[in-house]
Structures are given as C-alpha cells and as structure tokens.
C-alpha cells in the first residue's frame, strides 16, 4: 500500500539522515519502527506522509509514484499522529477539532458529523465533546489527536511515540484501541522504543540505526539471540531476557510473561 524504495534523504547533501532505505507496508498490517533517538525512525514517517521529499529514491502510494503528492494529498489515506499533542490542537472544542480533517477533505456535513461521532466514541471522548481542548488531561489530548486522525477515515495510521509521557492506564488503553483498529483493517505504523510493546503487538518490526534499516522481521526473529540489539539501543523485554537465560539452546521461544509462565509451569510441574 505504501512503500519507500531506495530512499536517501538528508537536510544537507553530505549528511544523509536516511541512507538507501527500502520499506513497504501492506494494507491492514501492524508494524513497528524502533531505534535509538536520532536513528532516522521519525524521518522515515515524515517521508511516508510527504512532509519531506527524498533526495533520491521513490515513495509509492498504492503502487504509484507519490513524488507530486503533498501532505494534504496523503492525508486522504494516512492519518499522522505527532508526538506532542499540544502542537496539533488548535480549535475551540473537542468535536470541532476532530472535524477539521473531514472538513478539509471535503466530506459532506452529514459525513463529518458521523465521522466525528464515531471517532470520539472509539477514543472515549464522547462526553467531553464540547470541552475546550487545553483543559483536557495529557492522556485525553493524546486521544484527541488520534480521534482527529481517525475522523478522516484513513486506511493507515502512523503514530510517533504515542506512549511517551503517558501513564500506564493510558498506555494500556491506547494499545487496546490500536489493536481494535487493526482488527478492523486499519494499517498501523508505530514508532516506539518500548520493548514490551515491540514484543507483543506488531506483526513486523523494522529497526533503524544511523539512518539505515538494519533489521526487518517478526518480533520473534528480532529477539532471537543472533541480533546485536544492544548496538541498536534496544533491549530484551524482561520475559524474553529471562527466557533466553533459562533456555539458552533456543528450544523454546519466550515472547511474553504469559509464555514464560506457561513454560515454567510445565517444567516445574504446576500444582503439587
């Protein structure tokens, strides 16, 4: 559905921020992009939404060259949720804010109303629809930015570190929402460095390091011990790390606390 092909990008010619990166995301996929701060993961998403144009290589949308597309054109297909909610909210009520996207895309008034209602329901903001956004809590503002993207009914959602600065309840809620959206067919690209999320939610993980794509595969493949993940500023999620130490021959792959529990239950004999 969306693809980067041999893309190189840099603000200055001699200092490329992305070097020959190729990446493709299919409809309905859930992928995560990880890497250290400065590795180029956010830049990848900026190229996908046409906020920046590549120095060389192509960006393809549904198989066609997107070189002439503006971010507004891409908005018909992709909802982009920036990291800082305060920089994305600019209208006087929650409902009005959510309506901005559909309005710009030319939805009819009835379509706008329906889209807004649905988006606010999904994000749990229906009862604050008339509130003045600066009075919302941090978690609610984050959900408002997601609702604003959802109201455009995109087939893909890109989120840049949506869980940073959020408390654990909001984090949980957000992940449940993303899972729900994905099950309804919305492709999700999540930029994150939360290892526990990486292990559990995406079907595919892409790791960026120093502007290059150094890994692409399933979380299971990522956390098998043959990859230098420490070099990429990643770490093993707790359960995975323990699982590797306890079963070093790799006979069992542990990806979550539940996996490890089940395994140990078998080994240690359960109820005695």
């Amino acid at each position, binding site marked *: 559905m969306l693809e980067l092909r041999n893309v190189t990008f840099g603000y200055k010619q001699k200092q490329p921020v992305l070097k020959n990166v190729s990446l493709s995301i299919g409809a309905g996929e859930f992928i995560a992009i990880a890497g250290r*701060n400065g590795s180029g993961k956010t830049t990848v998403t900026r190229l996908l939404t046409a906020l920046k144009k590549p120095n060389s290589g192509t960006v393809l949308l549904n198989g066609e060259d997107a070189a002439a597309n503006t971010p507004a054109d891409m908005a018909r297909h992709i909802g982009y949720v920036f990291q800082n909610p305060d920089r994305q909210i600019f209208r006087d009520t929650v409902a009005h804010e959510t309506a901005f996207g559909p309005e710009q895309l030319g939805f009819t008034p009835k379509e706008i109303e329906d889209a807004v209602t649905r988006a606010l329901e999904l994000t749990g903001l229906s009862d604050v629809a008339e509130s003045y956004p600066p009075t919302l809590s941090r978690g609610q503002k984050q959900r408002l930015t997601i609702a604003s993207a959802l109201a455009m009914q995109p087939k893909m959602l890109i989120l840049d570190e949506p869980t940073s600065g959020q408390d*654990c309840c909001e984090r949980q809620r957000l992940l449940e929402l993303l899972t729900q959206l994905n099950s309804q067919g919305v492709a999700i690209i999540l930029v994150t460095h939360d290892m526990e999320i990486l292990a559990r939610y995406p079907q595919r993980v892409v790791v960026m390091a120093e502007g290059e794509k150094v890994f692409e595969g399933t979380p299971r493949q990522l956390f098998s011990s043959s990859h230098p993940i420490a070099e990429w500023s990643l770490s093993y999620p707790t359960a995975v790390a323990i699982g590797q130490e306890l079963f070093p021959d790799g006979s069992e792959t542990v990806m979550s606390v539940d996996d490890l529990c089940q395994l140990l239950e078998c080994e240690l*004999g359960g109820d005695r």
Partner: protein
Amino acid sequence: MTAIVFDKFSYAYSTGDPVLHSIDLTVPTGSFTVVTGPEGSGKTTLCLAIAGAVPQYFGGRMAGNVTVGGVKTTAINMADLARQVGTVLADYESQLVALTVAEEVAFGLENRGVPRLEIAGRVQQALAMVGLSGKEDNEVAGLSGGQRQRLAVASILVTDPDIIVLDEPASALDPEGTLELYRLLGELNKDHGKTIVVVEHHLTSILPYATQLVVMDNGRIVLDGPVMQILTAMVNCQLYAEAVPALWKLKFALEKVVKVSLSDWTSPGEAVIELKKLLASRKKGVAKSA
C-alpha cells in the same frame, strides 16, 4: 534525620478544587523515593510542595505543613530552599533559559554569586555527569528533546543540592538514555548520599535503585513503603497495577501457578539465578523419584 515530612498537608490552587488531601509522608535522608500513580493524582503538586513553589509561588489554599531539612517550607523563601532542593520539572523545555549549553548550566551558580573562575569547572563536571561533555558552546535551540532534558538535569545537579526532585525526567529519553540517567541518580544516592524523589511511570527503570515507593491516586497517598511490599500491594489491591514492572508481573504469576514463594527480584539477573536453582532442584526431585 528525615529530609522531608508532609504532615496532613492539603492544598488547592487558587483556580480550583483541592489537589492534595491530607498527605502524610516521610522521606528519610538518603532515600531514593519513587512516586507513581495515574495522571492527575497530584504527583507534580507533591513535587512542587517539596520545592516550596506550592504554596509560595502559586498562592492558593493549604492546610497542614511540609517540612524540609527541619524547616517548614512556608518559613523560608524559595531561593533559600532551592539551596537544599533542586527541582527538574516535567516541562523541561520551559526550564531552559540561556542561549548556550554552558550558560544554562552556569545560570544557577551565577544567581548565587559563585565566583566566575569556579563556575567553569563545576559546569564541566555537571555536563560530564549527564553525557553532554564537549557541547558547552552548542546552542540550546539546536539540541534534541532528549539532550535538552539531560541539560535540565545538569543545570540542577551543578548547584549540588542535598535533595533532588525530578518530575518524569526520562520522558524524552530512549531506553539507553533512561538507563544512564537512573544509573547516575542511583550513584548520587548511594555514593553521595543525596535524597532523591522522582516521579516515574516506568517502574522497571527504578527497580535497582529505589528504596521507597509511593502510589498516589486522586490527591491521596494510597500506598507507601518499601518497594517490594508496595508492588505486592499494587497487584493485590489492584491499585495502578498496570505500572507493576514485567519482572514482578512474572513473579506474581509464577507464585500463583507454581505455588512457590519467590524472593524479591530487582533485576532479571536475580530472577534467572533463582529460577535456574528451582529448575535444577525440580529435575533432581524428578530424577530421584524416577
């Protein structure tokens, strides 16, 4: 000696309802206290109360009192209290006022009239602690979010306060940066006797260092005590249990399923050692009975 004591402290900002309700809390000198809880539970206000900004800067209404180093925070002006308490705010961007990195770190020292020749050395030291050495002349505007957050920490550390209060200091840092920051705070706590109070959601990072865990909800302290005890209580009473680190979620789940009491792990390494022993002894047990 207790560094910080909250005695039935309640507070409301002038614009609204009470934000803290009858807080009773003791932070002993030299402790590493972690405050956690859902958003809006009053953690930031608690930090500002230790620094004296609440109520001195904000006005509002209060009851009870907060004592820092034996002196009530209302009986001493903020600048003097700041000699003992260094505060890193959650909104670290707004805390940075200077044009270059070195000047930002020097700011606190300049305000106190520290002689110019002494400042340079202390600035370098502070920058080295947070990993920003060599960036003295860089403009603040050119730094990334994570670098700015570390700069805010350095600018507080340079004044060498006895108590350091940090409100979500790793929010802009990647896992590597977070590890480094808490390693530094742990060192300041253990080796230099600093009292640390930190607001944090990601409890895995503080497990190796924390000595006291406080859970807040709706302006009240709902749990307060040694880390291990409180983590157990968080799960048993379902109080902000989402924040319990994966290591301990594993421990509790295993204890339930395998009916074995496991020790208090502070790191995956400790868990591995204990689980290996357990596996080995079960194998022996099986071998014996076979």
